[in-house]
């Protein structure tokens, strides 16, 4: 969907759902996920549909992710940090979970 212009920003390593992803300094979490080609970052609470960042300016809340164990964080507003753990936010609760 997106490619990076030639850019010399230093690499920043983050962990997305347990897998290492290389981001760049200056990336927000949402931008890093888009650049890495990750398909969706959350599922919805009502139907469990996949969602990805939509507005990238803090209004749509479709980029909600779990960051270092805290849920419902706006990925488009939080800069990446070395070693940051990002998880897909699962919306629909299953019985027994």
């Amino acid at each position: 969907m997106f490619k990076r212009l030639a850019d010399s920003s230093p690499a920043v390593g983050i962990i997305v759902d347990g897998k290492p992803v290389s981001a760049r300094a200056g990336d927000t979490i949402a931008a890093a996920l888009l650049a890495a080609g990750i398909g969706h970052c959350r599922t919805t609470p009502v139907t469990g549909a996949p969602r990805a960042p939509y507005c990238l300016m803090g209004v749509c809340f479709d980029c909600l992710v779990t960051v270092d164990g805290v849920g419902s964080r706006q990925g488009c507003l939080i800069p990446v940090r070395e070693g940051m753990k990002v998880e897909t936010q699962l919306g629909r609760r299953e019985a027994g979970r």
Partner: protein
Amino acid sequence: MTASADLAPSYELVVIGGGPAGLAAAALAARAGVSTVLFDENPGVGGQIYRAITSTPVKDRAILGEDYWDGAKLAEEAKASGALIVNGATVWSLDRQRIVGISIAGKARMIEAGRVIIATGSQERPFPIPGWTLPGVMTAGAAQTALKAQGLVASGRTVLAGGGPLLWLLAAQTLRAGGKIDAILDTMPRRNWLHAMFHLPGFALSPYFGKGMALLKEVRAKVPIHRADTIEAVGADRVREVLFSSGGETRRLPADLLLLHQGVVPNVNLANAAGVAHVWNDRQLCFVPVLDADFGSSVPGIAVAGDGAGIAGGTAAAERGRIAAIAAVRALKPDCIVPDTQAIRQRLQREEMGRSFLDLLNRPVDAFRQPAGNTIVCRCEEVTANQVRDTAKMGCEGPNQMKAFLRCGMGPCQGRLCGLTVAELISAERGATLDEVGYYRLRPPVKPITLAELASLPISEAERKAVER
């Protein structure tokens, strides 16, 4: 970086939002000698129009265009003014007593403000088409943000749809950055020209005339443009193709990325929650705050500057910020020396000239504002157009009652992406005016905060005892 604990308990002026209006307001007030703090939720100042102005990796100035780089001066002036500028700061509450609830890096504070200037700007108008919630469908503004802040340019099969200055600007910027756009679906009907023509003289004199014409020429030379009466994003897990129809004929375009845009509207959430009165603006098809000549709102001591006061663009936003700041300084410290507003008002007038033309030319058609069928209206709670229409027909009179029936507007975005659509659908179904229908009554926290953040609020001995009694 400023931490929550570093903030003073009160400031004479609190400016909320670090776009052109906020930067200009903070710079002017601080230079005049007023203690000023500017809170902005993004990692850096600039707002949306000058997004990442101090950090963008896009070094070739031609890509984003000279208008973008105008923002550097505003950012420098604000930095040099002595105003405290705090990024990564989320304002989640503002009340009529001008107590500002703020959260920085997970720590909350309540700050008292002598005066408040809300400069929270605009957001893109909802564009509710079938499939607009699919991954791969984004706003044109989102793609522009990714380009400015991270140097990400659209790749793969890319379709733009809608209309308005930002759509064409993004197209030009993407092409200049080496991106490819497969098609633009123009949803603005030709008859808009008839209504807009009366206002052409004003537009022809405004600075936007020449720029707009050059932009259209640049994009049209490189991208196929199709008219579209209906648009649908199709795919299971993500968008795979875009269906559009024109004159009864339906066509399909394979797509990896669909970028939507049909204008911008004021971001009303914080002002609404603070109790600021709003009215429907029929030319801009949105709710705008009721403001006096100095951008003072119906709540004493709270002003709304920038595009949050009604859409007029980035340069006008800065002038509005200055006018609001002068009023604040005069109220706080009548002895301070401030610039004369007359010259500023003249510049503002020049910027606003031609806005009627742009509004009418880029007025989105009803079908793209008032969807039908199973099209999702509320993205958070997945409420459809039919559900909203049927509930309005049953007798539901306004958006607040609609929340109780359907939960629309009650998800994390707090109505930002459905409020206008729900209000317009109720108005259409019930034959009531938008002022009669009204908007969601918003309440703090206007941004989600954790219980831990609330619990981190400093508490005095007296307050602690009052609770335990």
